[in-house]
């Protein structure tokens, strides 16, 4: 029995594979999506216990917008049922700063960040930390 189902939303197949291998080794079930659109559909279809989300996909801020959609404060949002799913954002070094834009500048709707390249130990530690909450 897997410890949980994790959805990886990343358009880079190599990062997705590396992340998947780490997570499977640690006994998680992994689902992948190659774009934010596909990712949002999979959130509904799979109801994962945690989401790992890339920032730059179709657009430079696609990941950020996906997170905003998932964490919308509108109670009638299509994703209201999924707003409690923890999100880890995959970023490159220095990339967090330019992300801080949008209507509420201090509001970053994710729970944690992981710098690329993905480090297996850091990844597992952060995933387990969030799932244990």
């Amino acid at each position, binding site marked *: 029995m897997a410890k949980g189902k994790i959805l990886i939303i990343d358009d880079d197949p190599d990062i997705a594979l590396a992340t998947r291998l780490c997570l499977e*080794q640690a006994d998680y079930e992994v689902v992948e999506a190659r774009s934010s659109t596909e990712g949002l559909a999979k959130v509904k279809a799979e109801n994962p216990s945690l989401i790992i989300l890339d920032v*730059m996909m179709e657009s430079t801020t696609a990941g950020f917008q996906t997170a905003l959609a998932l964490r919308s404060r509108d109670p009638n949002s299509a994703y209201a049922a999924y707003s409690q799913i923890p999100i880890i954002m995959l970023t490159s070094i220095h990339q967090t700063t330019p992300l801080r834009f949008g209507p509420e500048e201090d509001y970053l709707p994710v729970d944690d960040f992981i710098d690329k390249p993905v480090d297996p130990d850091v990844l597992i530690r952060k995933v387990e930390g969030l799932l244990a909450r």
Partner: protein
Amino acid sequence: MQGLTTNAGLLRAFSSHDIASNSTRLILTRWAAGVMVLLATVVCVHGLRLPLPEAPLYAVGLIILAYNAIVFYWQMRRIPPLTEADAETHIRRLVLVQVGLDWLSMTIFLHLTGGITSPAVSFFFIHVVIVTVMLPAYAPIYAALAIAMLGGLALLEAQGALPHYTVLPGVPADLHTNGFFVLAQIIFLGTGLVATVFIASGIMHRLRQRELHIAALLQTAQDVNSTLEMTPTLEHLARNAAEALAVRGASIRLLDATRENLNLVAFFGLSQSYLDKGPVSLRHSELDRRVLANQAVIICDPMQDRRLQYPQEIAAEGIQSMLVAPIISRHRPLGVLRVYSESQRCFTEEDAEFLTAIAQQGATAIENALAHEQLSEADQERAQFVRAVTHELRAPVTGAQSLMRVMLRGMAGDLSDQQKDILRRLEGRLDSLLALINDLLSFAASKAVDMHQPPHPTPLNAILGSIRERYALQAEEKGLVFKFDLPATPLTVRSNEDGLIRIFDNLVGNAIKYTPAPGHVTVRVAHDADNVIVTVADTGIGIPEDVLEHLGQEFFRAPNAKEAGISGTGLGLAIVRQLVDYFGGAFHVESKLNEGSTFTITLPLTTGPETASA
């Protein structure tokens, strides 16, 4: 708003200063006049033995000197602490009093030296010129008063109501009762005085106008140089032009991209309904076509002028005449500057020359603003390009690194020792490549940082916190003692968030990188009234003293760092240095080979509002 005082204020200061300096000169002249009256009396009575009323003349001379002393004292005492407007009122009043007293003493002096037959009658011209220069509005009154006074004096003396002094030998003693002589004297003198007032005031008027124009040009040049923003500069320019020409309003229209329409960009003193009259297009405005061919145009009768696109609206606005000057850059026509007058008097060629000069300043302002705009656009494009390249270069490397790490952990099956060794080497090469990409790109970005994120009050604590978090684990894994004390109070420094992250990322990252286990890396944050001082100290390999000065040069790396086989690009400290300079801070290194290095960064503390934005 400094330097953008209104033209009217500037001109008032000018004219007030002008009157004050003239008044000073008048006082100086009067000292001479008083002394001359005394000396001339002595010479005429005792030298030439002329039958002058000696005592009254001495009295007149002394009275002149006495009131001059009072006026002198008054002017000295009252001017400095007054406001501009008060000073002007004060000096005007002072001049009026002086002129009045002069008028009175002149009359008495004339009476004592022969009334209508006095050779001193021509002194009136001096007085009239003085009044015209100082108080042009009072000049005709003063001329009329002078004539009336002389006529009155002649009448009183002729009828014996006042004694008459015959002072010149050979002049008939009853000349002053000769009606023909008296009338001729008064007519010639009167005509002379009126002509003098007319000529002198004409000259003064032109001089004042020139003064206004020069002041307006100066003011405009100042405005143009004080800002790179186009609209406020052009608004000041329109206002300066209207005020200097003493007319109702002004407007500036610039050609749009089609070079067919003239769009309003600045105006002064015009009604909204006039401004909303409709688009101005070259096709319908012969006036503007002519102006843009580089020729100022004067319109004296707008209602009848067929070159105008909107004659009715101009008439409805109460405009009686217009003057339009071209705004032309070195390369092409940019637009037009119009001034509108409600007065019947039409604009002159001189006005046109002046307005053309003002419009020239406008062209400079517009060119400056456009050049500035183009520069920042180019810079934005560059920054965007750097961001795109950053992503494209990093993505494949981080993908490969991620896979490599997973494989090295045996997550994709067991590996032989040799395979592991090869993968480790590959991993090392990829790590160096990523570091080089990161440094190169942040170096490129830091060169462009000024245009996008100018230094502003930036909270420091959160950034230091994230740096500490980022490196704590790395230091622990390497077996280093990592001490990083965050400041107890929230500090805000003049910088930007991205820049601060780059600075501390580099410094702390370097300290950990160049310190072998078991060593220490210590980060301390202190502050005084003006600055935050961050020190990053390590017990690492150190930097040889002879290369310390090269530290921070692009691509420079200390030889011992290279020998130790530690990868790096030599760009990190160059970035730190550049950013610290840009923020107005200071950068300092102390180091001892094989003992460690201490980097000290000083950044200006701000008390301004904290900005949470990036």
